[in-house]
């Protein structure tokens, strides 16, 4: 059940809110936790029923490990932690990487169904037992722990949350109130519109180009359309999902952490990773980069740590060499960025006149790396990148030549023979890219747009109903209208990050 389907919006979500609201009212907080956990299990079971056993087993094992680690009587804590982490990683390897390993060693793949969201809930639970081991988390109660893992808004694709931070909120703010529902729905709407009104239409145009890139040389403009299109699609898809998750979380009084902060406006790769998939970046920093020594080691080892962390981050996204290359590329970018920072004087780095150049270098580096992330094969990614630089291969639809009366070969040798993208698709992708990148580069992000965090739970609303409220209500209406084309007018498409 996708967040974007009528079944979720008009059936599951309202029923769940009523059910949990009634449970809190008549049985207290604990009853609410149980009701929310049950609802989340129903939500998860809609995808593939047997996966419920996987997640419940994972919760049971991790809770047992955490219980042992938190017990003052336990003597050999490190082996227990090692066992807990190993079980999580082995489960992830079995479900996600077995076929990658088998096929790379020449064996045939076996039939394994990847449980949805396993990468997310496994990472989150590793963080949990490590936090227990470090003593960052005190007393734990099973129903509390279960609800933080199962909480359906973040269950499938994050944001990754820390038990302590989220549990504090559950204990203080967990409630179902009309005010929270309205504020939550406003941010949910932003995500819905991002996904359905921008990401999905772009995908319709660029997916055939990525398919073609597997078997045939691409044409210059098609290659750029695919790369720029996917860069925008992934942002609107994943940040849209995160907005919806944050919005639904708010409906239950829970503020999930921000996952995106206008990442494509970054002027360095270091900044990009502080703004893109923030909760994953923080996880990798806290539970992998720092334990490896972080930057408090000799320079060569520091850079090696960065490369290792980014390659693992890439591999976490998917069992394929293209994901490792994507991660590795970002590792190289980060190392280069750090070398630059160490060797270039501040006056150059902080010179605002040079910022557009820094932005362009960062943005196009990210785009090239996304080609490996998206393309079905490495060959296909190289094909796309190669033809992005091959203007000799440029061909616009014949209609452009017809309308403009420009002769073939003018300018830059561009032909008007239509060997690449069709005229309707060219018009569509141009409109969507201009619109999409205007939002990406110029508009306030979801948090600023809706001002949700400033209205958080418990804060008294202003007494007067001002122009700002009218504008926000109109914005929500407009976004709902545009999102409705995706909800009612087309078959739902999965979120890109569900595959990870």
């Amino acid at each position, binding site marked *: 059940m996708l967040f974007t389907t009528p079944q979720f919006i008009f059936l599951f979500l309202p029923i769940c809110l009523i059910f949990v609201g009634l449970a809190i009212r008549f049985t207290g907080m604990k009853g609410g936790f149980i009701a929310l956990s049950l609802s989340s299990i129903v939500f998860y079971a809609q995808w593939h029923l047997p996966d419920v056993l996987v997640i419940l087993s994972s919760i049971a094992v991790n809770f047992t490990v955490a219980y042992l680690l938190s017990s003052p009587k336990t003597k050999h804590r490190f082996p227990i932690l090692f066992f807990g982490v190993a079980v999580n990683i082995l489960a992830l390897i079995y479900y996600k990487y077995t076929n990658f390993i088998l096929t790379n060693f020449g064996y045939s793949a076996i039939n394994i169904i990847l449980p949805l969201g396993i990468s997310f809930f496994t990472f989150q639970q590793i963080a949990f037992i490590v936090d227990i081991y470090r003593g960052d988390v005190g007393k734990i109660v099973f129903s509390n722990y279960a609800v933080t893992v199962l909480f359906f808004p973040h269950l499938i694709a994050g944001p990754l949350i820390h038990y302590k931070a989220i549990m504090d909120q559950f204990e203080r703010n967990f409630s179902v109130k*009309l*005010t929270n529902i*309205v504020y939550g729905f406003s941010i949910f709407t932003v995500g819905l519109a991002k996904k359905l*009104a921008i990401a999905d*239409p772009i995908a*319709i*145009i660029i997916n055939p180009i990525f398919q073609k890139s597997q078997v045939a040389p691409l044409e210059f403009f098609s290659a750029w359309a695919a790369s720029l299109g996917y860069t925008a699609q992934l942002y609107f898809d994943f940040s849209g999902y995160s907005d919806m998750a944050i919005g639904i979380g708010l409906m239950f009084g829970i503020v999930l952490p921000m996952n995106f902060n206008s990442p494509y406006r970054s002027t360095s790769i270091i900044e990009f990773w502080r703004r893109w998939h923030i909760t994953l970046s923080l996880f990798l920093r806290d539970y992998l980069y720092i334990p490896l020594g972080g930057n408090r080691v000799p320079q060569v080892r520091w850079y090696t740590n960065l490369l290792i962390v980014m390659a693992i981050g890439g591999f976490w996204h998917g069992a394929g060499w293209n994901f490792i290359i994507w991660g590795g590329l970002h590792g190289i970018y980060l190392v280069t960025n750090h070398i630059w920072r160490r060797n270039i004087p501040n006056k150059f780095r902080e010179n605002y006149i040079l910022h557009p150049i820094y932005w362009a270098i960062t943005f196009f580096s990210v785009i090239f790396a996304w080609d490996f992330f998206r393309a079905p094969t490495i060959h296909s990614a190289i094909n796309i990148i190669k033809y992005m630089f091959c203007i000799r291969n440029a061909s616009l639809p014949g*209609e452009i030549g*017809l*309308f403009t009366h420009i002769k073939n070969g003018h300018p830059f040798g561009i032909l008007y023979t239509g060997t690449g993208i069709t*005229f*309707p*698709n*060219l*018009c*569509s992708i141009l*409109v*969507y890219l201009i619109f999409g990148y205007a939002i990406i580069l110029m508009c306030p992000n979801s948090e600023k747009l809706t001002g949700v965090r400033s209205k958080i739970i418990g804060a008294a*609303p202003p007494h007067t*109903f001002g122009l700002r*409220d*009218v504008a*926000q*209500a*109109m914005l*929500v*209406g*407009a976004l*709902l*209208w*545009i999102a*409705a*084309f*995706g*909800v*009612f*007018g*087309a078959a739902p498409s999965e979120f890109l990050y569900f595959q990870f």
Partner: protein
Amino acid sequence: MKNRIAAIVSIALITIMAMMAGWIGLIRLTTPSIQANWTRGLYDRKIAAAHQIDGPRIFLIGGSGTHYGYSGADITRLTGLQTINFGIHAGLGMPYLLYRAKKVLRSGDFAVLIIEVPLNFSTTPTTVLSEFVLRYDLRYLLDVSLKDDLSLLFGYTPLDFIAGWARSRIPWTAEIGRPETVGTNGDETLEVSHIQTPADRSNLLNAGPMPTWPVDPNQPPPPLQDFFSWATKHNVRFGIAWTPLLEKSDYKTLKYENFYHDIENWYKINGGVVLGNHDEYNQPPENMFDFIMHANEKGRKAASQVLARHLSEVLTVQ
């Protein structure tokens, strides 16, 4: 606080309605897509042709398979009863084709439903229908369920609009897809075999058989059942015939025989007549045009003769 929330919700709803009104206005003001323009032209000419006739008429109702596959003029000549080819665009879907047919049919008419078989199994509104309704027939929204209303209102997306606008910039030079070639009986007068391309022929020869769907022989699709009830109430006789289909040996197998028989049963149990066996209407490749359900003028003539013969039998008996 409740008033505040009520105000927010009200403003949001008003915005949605205003945006929808603006969207419909924009669609209606801009150039229609080629297919919307063709579809509207077909309706205009075929309805005008139908209104020219006094007395009982035979209506051939279906999509483009009927438009290309039958000649109302030939059937008129062979049966002696004025016949209108009311084949339009299958993309409109069965519910809309029947809805529009009901507006033209009158007591004493004979409706031959030659609905393309797949249309019986998918009755959700299409993008083609959504554009057509938003451009030309908003009243249809009052005739369907709320679910279908939402699909129609939001079925023609901004992406469809941009792509349709871009296509409409290209001058339409093809001979087909033009309402001007519709004749006095609503027939397609263009001799399409002359414009068949090698690609059309290759596609035809490589096409697989039409699939089958599970059929409950006693339960017609709701729009069809509604039409049967309406026709009975308004003294309109009805029957079933088949779209000329590219012949395949598969269609002679028991699986297809049973499939077609079950569909025929929908009509039989509701008082309709079956106008011959499906196999009689199938045509060899040389009688077909660009698609397995589009006959050329030779296929059109052959299928019309078969239908006229069966119609004559039924009309004589009655």
